[in-house]
Each structure stands twice: as C-alpha cells, then as structure tokens.
C-alpha cells in the first residue's frame, strides 16, 4: 500500500444553526499504562451553541470531570479534537479560593492574570462582587465566608476572567438545599445578563433539568453520549413546574438503564 494514497472520508457538511462555543469531536482519553489502562472517554462528541446552558449528567465513572479537564486544557486528549471559542473558566465542587487572599484579592488576582491594569482592578473586583451579591464582603478571607458565599466568590473570580465558556464541575454539590436553590437562581440570572455559555456537570438530574436548555446523559466506563434531552419549559418559575419532575424522572430512568448494564456484566 502506498503511503501517498489518502483515504480520508468526505467531510460531512454542517450547517450550524447558531455559532458554536464548544465542539468536541471523537475525543478519547485513557488513563494508566498503554494496553492495560482504563478508558475514561470513548469517542465522545458534543456541540454546544454559543450562549447555551448545557448540563451533563452521568453515573460514577462516566468521565464527567475528565471531560471538563480536557476542555479546560488541564489535560490532553489521546484522540479527537476539542475546539473552543474564547476564554474558559472552571468552577469546582470546592470553591478553590486562595486562602492567602481576601475575597476581593482572589478576584483581583484573576483580573491581573488576565492582564487588567492595576489601577482598574479594585473597582472592577468590587463591581464583580456586587454582581454576585457580595457587596461589603470583599475584605473577608475565604474561611470567614459560608460555603455558598465562597462559591459565589469563585463565580465572581470566573467572571473576572471574562470567560466566554464557563465549565462547572458539580459546583453546588456540597451546599445545603436552600443555598443551592438560591444559587440556581443567581447563576441563571448572571447567565441571562451576561450571555456566556455554560457546560454544567452534575449527578443531580433535577438540578440539570432546573438549569439546562439541554441535558446530555453520558454512559459509564467508558463515557459516551447516551442520549440528549431538550428542556422545553420556560425559565420563569421553572423550579416549581411539575413538568420538571416528570422529565427528571424520565432522564433518571435512562440513567438507571445505563447503570443496570454494568450490573448485568458480572
């Protein structure tokens, strides 16, 4: 066989309906030694339109966090491509604030690393803390804030990056239900006002339906896209919409099916 012969298949023609903020194409990721490692992601493909709010749900071992790390550029793909537009911010389950800086200092560091002039940082940081309803808490150290407040500082810090794409890795997972509800509203408001794109990973299906335009169910070991659900309810008063519960139940059933497959394997 001649190495000069190119056998690449014809590129499929795509007519995007909206500009794309993130395109994941055939991404594979394996951990551990070659031939003996664990396949975390197998041929995963996903497109996220600019300004969309997409939630990823999956059971343990679906490679959610792996995928976010790859998109954030904290790790490299074994195969496939990830294309993204603009700056990327990442929120973790823990706020991951720097304990040696105040709340405002954390936001200012993000501004400084983005190249914002020293003279503008203070005012800008205050503005961002105002935006997440933390006016007057800028001088507090992270340990002097509650869990929900820390997560909002982390949100302000991500906004300070002027992120076009916000990746969220179970950001409200460790908060109590009341705080989580309020932060859902808060995140939704910021998203509406600022128009960034969100890729939100959670194991809480109800949370995914509450927040997303679309809920993507992933398979486990290896992670693949199993099914995509569009959420058609309006955003106003969505938390109280009985349809949310029904859709969440449907998605949970789908997820259970995936988990059940692994039980049968044994």
């Amino acid at each position, binding site marked *: 066989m001649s190495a000069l012969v190119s056998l690449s298949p014809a590129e499929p023609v795509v007519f995007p309906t909206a500009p794309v903020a993130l395109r994941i194409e055939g991404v594979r990721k394996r951990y551990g030694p070659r031939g003996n490692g664990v396949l975390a992601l197998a041929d995963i493909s996903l497109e996220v339109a600019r300004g969309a709010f997409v939630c990823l749900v999956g059971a343990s071992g679906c490679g959610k966090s792996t995928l976010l790390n790859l998109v*954030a550029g*904290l790790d490299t793909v074994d195969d496939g491509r990830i294309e993204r537009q603009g700056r*990327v*911010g*990442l929120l*973790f389950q*823990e706020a*991951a*604030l*720097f*304990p*040696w*800086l105040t709340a405002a200092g954390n936001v200012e*560091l*993000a501004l*400084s*690393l*983005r190249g914002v002039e020293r003279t503008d940082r203070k005012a800008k940081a205050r503005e961002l803390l105002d935006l997440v*309803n*933390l006016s007057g*808490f800028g001088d507090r*150290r*992270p*340990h*002097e*804030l*509650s*869990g*929900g*407040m820390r997560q909002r500082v982390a949100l302000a*810090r991500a906004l300070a*990056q002027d992120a076009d794409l916000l990746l969220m890795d179970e950001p409200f997972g460790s908060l109590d239900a*009341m*705080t989580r509800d*309020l932060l859902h*509203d*808060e995140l939704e*408001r910021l998203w*509406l*006002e600022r128009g960034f794109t969100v890729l939100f990973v959670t194991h809480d299906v109800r949370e995914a339906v509450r927040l997303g335009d679309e809920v993507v169910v992933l398979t486990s070991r290896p992670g693949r896209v199993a099914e995509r659900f569009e959420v058609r309810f309006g955003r*106003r008063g969505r938390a109280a919409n009985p349809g949310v519960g029904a859709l969440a139940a449907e998605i949970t059933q789908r997820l259970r099916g995936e988990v059940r497959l692994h039980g049968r394997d044994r």
Partner: protein
Amino acid sequence: MAAIGSRRKEWGVDALDQDLAGLDRLELPLTPAGSRLVALWSSAWPKLVAVVAVVAVWQVVIWSGWRPEYVLPSPLAVAERLVDDLSGNDLPAAIAITLRRAALGFGLALAIGVAVGLAIVASRRVRVAAASLVTGLQTMPSIAWFPFAILLFGLSETAILFVVVLGAAPSIANGLISGVDQVPRLILRAGHVLGASGWRSYRFVVLPAALPSFVSGLKQGWAFSWRSLMAGELLVIIAAQPSIGVRLQFAREVADAPGLLAVMLVILAIGIAVDALLFGTLERTIRRHWGLLEPRR
C-alpha cells in the same frame, strides 16, 4: 439595559437579592467583639504563673541549703546582677556582637536554604540527588561540625557562621520543599485555569500557598541557628570579641555564679523573644488569615 431592568422585576430578581442577603447574614457566625486587652491578659497570666512557680522552686532550693550561695545564688542575687550588668557597658556590647552574628548567620542560612529549596522544588533530578541529603544534614548535631570548622577556618567568626548556616539552612530548605509539596492539587488547577502557568504559577500560586510551612521552617531554622551560635561561641573564643558565649565561659572560669546565671537568662530571653515574638507572631498571623486557627473562645 431597560429590557434587563424590566426582566429583573418580572422574575422577582430583587426578591432574590434579599433572599441571598438574608441567608448570608444567617450563615455567618456571630462574632462577639472581645477586648484585645482581655485576650492578652488571658493568654499572659498562665505564663506568668509558670515563671513565678519556677522562681519559687529555685528559692526553696536556696533555703534548703543544698549548695552554697557562691555556687548557686538566689534569684534575687541573680536579678540584681542582671540589672547591674545590663546597665554597664560590657554585657550590652557582648549582646550586640552575638546578635550581629545571629542576624548574619541566619540571613546567610535563609539565602542558602531558599536557594537550595527552590532548586530542589524546580528540578526532579536535583530533588533525587539532594533531598535526602538535606534531611540527613538536619539530623547531624551541629556541635559535631565544630572541630572540622575550626580546622577549615581556624578560630574565627567564619568557623562559627559556617556551623550556624549548616544548622539552620536545611530546616529552611525543608520548610520550603514540604510547603510546595503540600500545595493542594485543586489550588494548582484553579491557578492554571486562571492563567497562572510557568513562573507565574510559582509567583502567584505555589509560593504563597507554601507560606505556612515555610514560616515553620524559618522558626525551626532560628532555633537551630541560635543553638549552634551558642555552642560556637563557647568553643571558638576569639580575642577582642567578647561575645555572650565568651562571657559565659569566662564567668565559669572565675567561678562568678551570679554573672553566669545572668548571662544564661539573657540567652534564654533572646531565644524566646525571637522565637515567640518574631516567628511566632508571623506564624500566628498567617494561620489566622488562612483560617487554620481555631477562633479564640
């Protein structure tokens, strides 16, 4: 903007602001404003009691007549002698000489310890080669270096400083290394996402994160360097350099017990002052800022 304004109202966003503010207020602990003076007193009196107890035991031993007064003087005699010596010229001059050496030795140890620590942190190869050596050096009693140091540098200040640096630098390097090693992965990832990579990651994330451990290393390094310095001043007697150690040795030779004990009190006081007031305060401030201290009750 008008669209957002009307949407705010329509969606009850103003209510959300209030809900969040209310929850924040409820979740933050109430901190009663305590008086600084009261706090200071409550931490000071147990220490005062301990000092009084030690002096009392000392006085009881004197009264028992276990040793003659010219060998073991009473607390009062030593206190009088200390006041006398401190108001004279010789003891303050000796303190100045010793403190200058301490500062010089610790400063050198700081520079060398930080340089070695950074080299080990930055390069895997240097670490494999040098990390266990640094830890090994730390276990070596510094007084055992003196015969060698005297051979190398003669009876000179260089010999003393050589041993002071060898005693303190490994602790300082180790503090830095373990601090960098213990930076949580999450913090590193957060820094990376914010755009801190390469030297910026060290400057803005790794080194600040290593600070508490580094300060502990400094504190330990000071303890080692102070001990090495005292040992050095007893062993390496330099003419025309009447340091604290020289005075101690001299007091023993002329059997001047009150003078000897007065100098010992000075050594103790300097050690405690630097350890507690300088490094202790630094350590506590950092730990308080980081939320590593239990709030005072």
